[in-house]
Structures are given as C-alpha cells and as structure tokens.
C-alpha cells in the first residue's frame, strides 16, 4: 500500500519539534484521516481538534505544508507525496499542545460587539433579496483561518487594537441585517481598529466558506466608518479617485 510521511508538530507552550509518522494512504483520504490514524496507531496522545469531519464546524484548522487549511477538507491526493507533509498549528495563536492552539482571544473580541437590536415595533417581514448578502456572512464557521493569516494579527501582534477579519464579518452581518437598529461604526473604528486593515485580501483567500470578506464585509464597513467620522468632502474625493483607478 502507498504510504505518506508526515511531520507533525509535537510540543506545547514551552516549545516542541516535528515528529515523523508513516501513514498508509486510502482513496479519497484527507489529512484529518491521517491524523486519526496516527492517534490510533502511533501517538494516542496527539492533540487535535475536530468535530464534523465535513467542513461545517470549523474545529480542525491547522497549517498543512505551511498553508492554513481545514484538515478535514485537505485531500491527500492534492498534496505532493514525494516529500514529507508537514502539519503545524495555526501560527497566530499560542500553542496549547501539538495542533491545538489557544483561540480564547477570539471569544473575548466577540463579546465587545453589540448584539442584534431590532427596530422597536418592527414588522417581522424580510425579503430574500435583503437577506441574501447577510446570509453570506452568517455562513462563517469560526475556523479562525482568516485571523491566522491576517498580517496585522500575525506579524504586528495588534491583538488589543484589532478585531480581525472574522469579526468584521460578524459586524457586517449585524450592520446589514434588514431589521437591525444599532450602529457599530464607533466600535469598528476605536475598538476593532478596522483602519489598520490595508485590504491585502489574504483573509478572503483562505476562507473555506468562500465569504468575500474584504469586498463584501470590510470595504463597505470602512466606507461606513469614513462616512460617519471623517470629512464628507474628502470621503467623496476618495471615492471618485477609487472609481477612476
């Protein structure tokens, strides 16, 4: 039977190193299957997270050959097998053990965001065309891969000033909800630091749910912030310049 060689990070907060495992390949196998194989046969204490094994829960995020992926959706037949496949934890979050990282920071950021607040006395009618764009954002499975690749979080460690793409998606879902009454622009600007995003689109590229994070969430939100807080004339000029590019 064909075999793949894996180099999986083993370690904890204090450091660690890759360990090598050999795994027999079955048709259609994904990286998470290989990790399960390693657990069952070679390293019962290998720490990983997973739940659905079908790309629905966002638990199994890691870096495969250096690329941020859901391991349950990363097919082995899409990876070169002539060299070892490396699996390492997400870089932007502190390692707890092996592939498991401390993502609790995300849950803390989430708490800062004011919840949905319907307009008083509103009639509960909404049309598909109005909910379509919000439903795109609500597809988010909180895999935090976008958080993992965003350079503001990754290199600049701006975790106190910057919420990250996941939470721009969440705010966009609330702001564009047809019946919501609250404005979250001040929080976007001051607490979630949306101004620090320079639209590199790295987040959009890794999103397994194919949410257009930058185009559909971040840019419209930046426009709202500009509209509300900066010179409306300057805002117009920028808009025109942008359109001419």
């Amino acid at each position: 039977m064909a075999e793949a060689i894996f180099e999986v990070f083993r370690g904890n907060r204090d450091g660690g190193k890759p360990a090598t495992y050999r795994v027999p390949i079955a048709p259609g196998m994904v990286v998470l299957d290989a990790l399960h194989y390693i657990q069952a046969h070679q390293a019962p204490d290998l720490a990983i997270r997973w739940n659905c094994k079908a790309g629905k829960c966002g638990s199994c995020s890691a870096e495969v050959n250096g690329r941020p992926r859901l391991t349950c959706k990363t097919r082995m037949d899409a990876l070169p097998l002539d060299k070892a496949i490396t699996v390492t934890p997400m870089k932007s979050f502190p390692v707890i053990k092996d592939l498991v990282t401390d993502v609790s920071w995300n849950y803390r950021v989430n708490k800062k965001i004011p919840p949905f607040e319907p307009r008083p006395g509103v009639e509960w009618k909404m049309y598909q065309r109005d909910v379509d764009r919000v439903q795109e954002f609500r597809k988010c499975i909180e895999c935090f891969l976008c958080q993992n690749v965003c350079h503001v979080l990754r290199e600049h460690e701006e975790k106190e000033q910057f919420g990250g793409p996941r939470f721009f998606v969440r705010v966009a879902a609330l702001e564009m909800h047809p019946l919501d009454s609250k404005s979250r622009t001040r929080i976007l600007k001051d607490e979630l630091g949306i101004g620090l995003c320079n639209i590199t689109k790295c987040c959009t590229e890794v999103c397994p749910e194919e949410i257009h994070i930058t185009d559909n969430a971040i840019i419209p939100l930046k426009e709202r912030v500009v509209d509300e807080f900066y010179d409306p004339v300057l805002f117009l000029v920028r808009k025109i310049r942008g359109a001419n590019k």
Partner: protein
Amino acid sequence: MTAEYETHDHDVLIIGAGGAGLRAALGALAQGAKVGVVCKSLLGKAHTVMAEGGIAAAMANVDSADDWRTHFRDTMRGGKLLNNWRMAQIHAQEAPERVRELEQWGALFDRTQDGEILQRAFGGHTFRRLCHVGDRTGLEMIRTLQDRGVQMGIDVYMECTISRLLKDGDRIGGAFGYWREQGRFVVFRAKSIVIATGGIGKAWKITSNSWEYTGDGMALAYGAGAELKDMEFVQFHPTGMVWPPGVQGILVTEAVRGEGGILRNKLGERFMEKYDPKRMELSTRDVVARSIYTEVREGRGTEHGGAYLDISHKASDYVKKKLPSMYHQFRELADVDITKEPMEVGPTCHYMMGGIRVDAETAQSSVPGLFAAGEAAAGLHGANRLGGNSLSDLLVFGRRAGLAAAEHAKTIDTTSIDSGQIEEAARDMLVPFERKDGENPYTIHRDLQEAMQDLVGIFRNQEDLTRALEELEKLKARVGHVGVEGSRMFNPGWHLAQDLKSMLTVSEAVTRSALTRQESRGAHSRIDYPGLDATWGTKNNVIAREGSAMTLRQSPVPEMPNELKQLVVEEK
C-alpha cells in the same frame, strides 16, 4: 491521596452547549438563576452546528392548512405511537413560537415571496414545514443562541468534560469533571443540573456523529440513578456518504430528497415505488433506510454498496443555492458534481430516539433536580424521529428544562457533597495512567464499533443480539485494563479511555432493550419478528441501575385523551 480540584457554584448547571443546552441556559437565566454551561468542545462546535435540513414548526407560511394538530399527528405516526403524547403535543404547539423567537434574536431564515420564513418538505411531514437556511440551519441556530447567551452573560466552561454526577442524598448535588487542556479536575456544586449532551452515534462504525457522541449524558444519569427509556430505537439515516472510505457515514441531508432528489438502484429502478409508493423518497427514515439496505443486500446496490441519489434534474443554480454545503461536500470530498451526476448513499447511524426518561412538562428525570433535554432525553420521538423534529425539540424542551431547573433551584437552600464521591471520581480518572501495559483505548473503541455495527444494526435478530451482549461483557473487561500514554495535558487517548465507559453502558442498554422487544416497530427491525405486535405497542422499555446490575422493565405507554386519539387514527 486527596484529589486536587477547583470548585464552582451554580444554581443551574447545564451539561452541553448544543441547541438544547443553550436554550436551557437562556430559560434559566430569564428566571434569574446563576447558570453555568459545560461543554467538551469549543463553544459553537456542538453537533447542532452540523444540522442541515431544517427545523420543523407548523407555521403554515407555505401550506396554510398546516397546524399543530397535523404536526402532532405526523410526529405520533412517525414514532409508531410509542411517543409520549403529551411531549408530542407540547412540541407541536410551542415550536412555531420558539422559531419566531430565534428570528427576534437575529436568525435569518430563507424567505417566502411575501417575506415570511420559508418552509420545505421533509419525510413524514404532511405539509411543507421545515424552516431552513439553505442546508446550514443548525449553524444559524447555534450562532443565534450562542450570541444571545453571550449577551445575557452565561458562564461557559469550554473544553471541560463531566465524568460523574454527584449526589446530595437522593437529589442531585453537582458534577465532577476535568479540563481537557490541562487535565485538571473541577467540581461544580449545583442545585439543579440539565443534561443536554446529545447522542451515542460513536458506538457504531458508520455514523454521521462526531467524537463527542459517546452517550455521556445518558450514562451519567444512569449512574446517578435515573431511568433510561426506548433505548432500542437508534435511527439509521438512509443517506450517508459511502465513498471514498474516509467520508463513509458523513450525512447527506434529507433536504436533497425534500428538494426533489430521486433514489435509484444500479439497474436505474426508482425502488421506493416498491416499498412506499405513496410517499416515495419522502417516506419516513426507518422505511427508506431499510429499503436501501434491502436493495444492496439483494444485489442491486451501486459500485460501493449504496444507492444512487439524484438531484441533477433540477437547475444547477437552484441546487447550489438550496444545497450549497452538499454541493461542496461532494465536490471536495468525493469528486462528484451533484448538479450533473448522482450521489452514492447508504444508511448511517444518526440519532438516538431513546434516552433519559423525563416528565413531559418539566423535563425532570426520576432523580430530583436532574433534568434532561434534546437528543439525550427520550419520549418525543417514540420509535422513529421525523427529520426536523430534533431542532424544534431542542428549543421547546431546552427552554422548559431551563425554566423548571431554575424553579427547582429556588427550593434548595444549600447543597453538600461528601468528599468520598469526589475522591472516587478522581481515582477512576487516574487509574489508566498507572497501568503500564494497559490496552490501547483506540483498539477497544474500534472493536466496540464493529460489534455494534454488525450485531446491533438496522436489522437485528435474537442470535446477533445475544452475541452482542457477550461481546460487550468482553469489552467491559478490556476497558478495565485500558492504559494511557503521555501526560494529563490535552490527551485524546485518555479522554477516549473515559468515554469508552459511557459508550459501553449505553450500548448495553440499547442491546438489552433490542433483545427484549420481540417485534419490528419504527427504527427497530427484528428479522425474527418482522411485524408490529399489538401488546408491544403499549409498552416502553425502561432501563435502570440496581447496584451494579442493569435492570429492564416495561412501562405502559401513557394513554392519550380521546380528542388526540381521534387525530392519529389512520385514515383507511
């Protein structure tokens, strides 16, 4: 040795952060209780997140003739009248309000032309009744509840597993558990506890369920003296993926059939014509699962031992819009484009109708202060659950459990737990580390899954079930010698060694109940007793613990009032 542990106090402790647990937490919070929620995974990753097809509620947005009576009748008939009628009635009456509430908390369902919540057809439902968001309804539901909970300030203990319930005399006193991350112990003192831990699918080899589904809540309650009911009724969903091997068992939502998907065998025959010509693909799950199984067994299966499920006659854009995650799942995991070619599907272990026996109004078990809701509880679904009736169950009975648990907590002044129970719970957790040549828990788990798959599957008989009990005894002995490697820090092998105990207890309850029920009803099919039996139709199997032995008795199915009886008589 004295165990080291941290202690937390709550009026109401909720074990489980799926739909049932979160809705219970909101219910208890609304009563002013101090609420804690414990869950094995991160918040938002419970099984509920995986639910696809929708949530059943007779809102009559699409078919105006629908009402609670019809929903009640469908549920009772689907459950082959073994359901607790009062639960079925409450469920049908309260589900629409619970769905509206979700919308008011920010959920965005797909819409009708007039701006109402859109509803789709599903097996066994007379009318189009399932409120949905494409095929990711569970995600919408869990996020909505989670956000609401965070806003109201619930304390969530994530990645924390409860391994034992603690008693204060005859009533509930708290729970003992461990943090997955560091392996440290924790004791929760609580006046009421709600179990919302979901099902037991991981005891079978082919399953749509995740690692969390090891029957913990049922085993915990059983250990604390509560009764389990209807344990023979395990739902095999007709359509799981069958190929490639790694994805075997992953769910293919019933919404594919709800949206018009057709089942065929390898000869191209639409075989449901034979088994249920009236309802065809939208027959109840027990019937469709057995039909596919029979086709395969009689040699008309597909290349990989399943049936074809085809939706490619619908417009490609429509399929992608209404079934986006199915489209991606097949494209990415099986190289199949479902807008152009059929899927290969076969039965997969999916849902537990049985569970903790509870009171219909309050969701309280036979142990004072111990409540249960969601998949962990029994009663609503009887012998077979209709699709979509679980998500509504979670909301309706989650809320009721939360309210009743908070009320109960008000009647209790203080709880005290003797340290002996805690010491014993800690010792139980630690012994596997001391066995240097202990057996690998993964091997035992694999053997359990094989035994349950082969011997306690879709079709059962006396001989297989008797053998299964023998196998379970051997497995129990092996679990007594399980060993773990490594440290207490985030150690899945250690966690599995613990989960195996729950799986074995619950598997035994399933097998004993299945052996006793000498008839075929709903999801329980006995080859040696193929028909319905009128006397068995009046009895539920009830399991309880006596000392260390598992006992089984029958309890009469509660009788319906006349006006409800009228509703469920089969029309000729």
